[in-house]
């Protein structure tokens, strides 16, 4: 499974959806995330930490789907070390237009610190 979901808390105890991402993310995976953060989903408007492994790829259909998720999450911090994966996420952010509550980090600790200081 390219997405492995886990409900957790931030260091300051705020609800957190942690997603471990690897391999090729398809539209099915993207929709599974969408279902979790829908209005009536269990993680609607939560803080999300996405830890993306090197070599992860996003299918064209998944890339087109992600912009639909923007109003449904509180904030997404993406921890990514691979320049290629970072470029892929940057490109999706460009396609989305504005994604103010989405930011890339090179470490999980930085990502969590940013999520914790956000007022949602």
């Amino acid at each position, binding site marked *: 499974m390219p997405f492995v979901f886990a409900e957790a808390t931030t260091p300051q105890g705020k609800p957190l959806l942690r997603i471990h991402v690897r391999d090729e993310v398809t539209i099915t995976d993207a929709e599974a995330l969408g279902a979790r953060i829908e209005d009536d989903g269990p993680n609607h408007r939560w803080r999300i930490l996405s830890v993306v492994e*090197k070599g992860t790829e996003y299918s*064209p259909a998944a*890339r087109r789907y992600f912009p639909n998720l923007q109003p449904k999450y509180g904030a997404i911090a993406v921890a990514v070390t*691979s*320049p*290629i994966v970072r*470029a*892929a996420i*940057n*490109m999706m952010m460009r396609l989305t237009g504005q994604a103010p509550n989405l930011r890339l980090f090179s470490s999980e600790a930085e990502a969590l610190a940013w999520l914790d200081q956000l007022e949602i």
Partner: protein
Amino acid sequence: MSLTITEARINGLLNTLVTAASGDYDVRVALEEHEDPLLDVELGINYLLDELIERRTQNEAQEEELLTRARQLARQQDELVQALSTPVIAVWPGVLALPLVGRIDDARAAVITATLLERIAAERASHVILDLTGVAAIADATMPALLRMIRAIGLLGARCLLTGIRAEVAPQIVALGGNDLHVRALARLSDALALVLADKGALDQPHR
């Protein structure tokens, strides 16, 4: 911002673009883990190629759908034209009338004959009135087709009558061998119907 880029990467980009420009969208820029903005461009080109493939696939599917629809419409049109070009009317029990309109070539004559013979057999028709009011001219190919149709009608035991032959068409019929028809010709369809009904004893014979 200055950026140092190897010639190999530029060549890779150019090769990808040239290949894609020739219509091969399966080509991709080989990505390496470089920490520079050119990586965004390289990845962007790959994403663009993904989109081009997607659009091409959609276009092909739409084209196929349009072709299927066009074939369906053509088939429906053929069926409609065939139905309209062979309007066999049962004007009385055992009496069929067929108004012929327009040019009748071999292919159309074959369709008309097949439809007509089927109706003659199905309705055990004793008389068939071929009305030529809508035929403005007899083409060279029309007369043999008409002759074959009339002979086939006779073989099924039905009597054929011709009506509505225009003044300008009559000489053409004679010139094209219409003398061999050996069928009764009358001015109007109503005349033929009256004659047939009289034959059947349904009316007093108006004229013989």
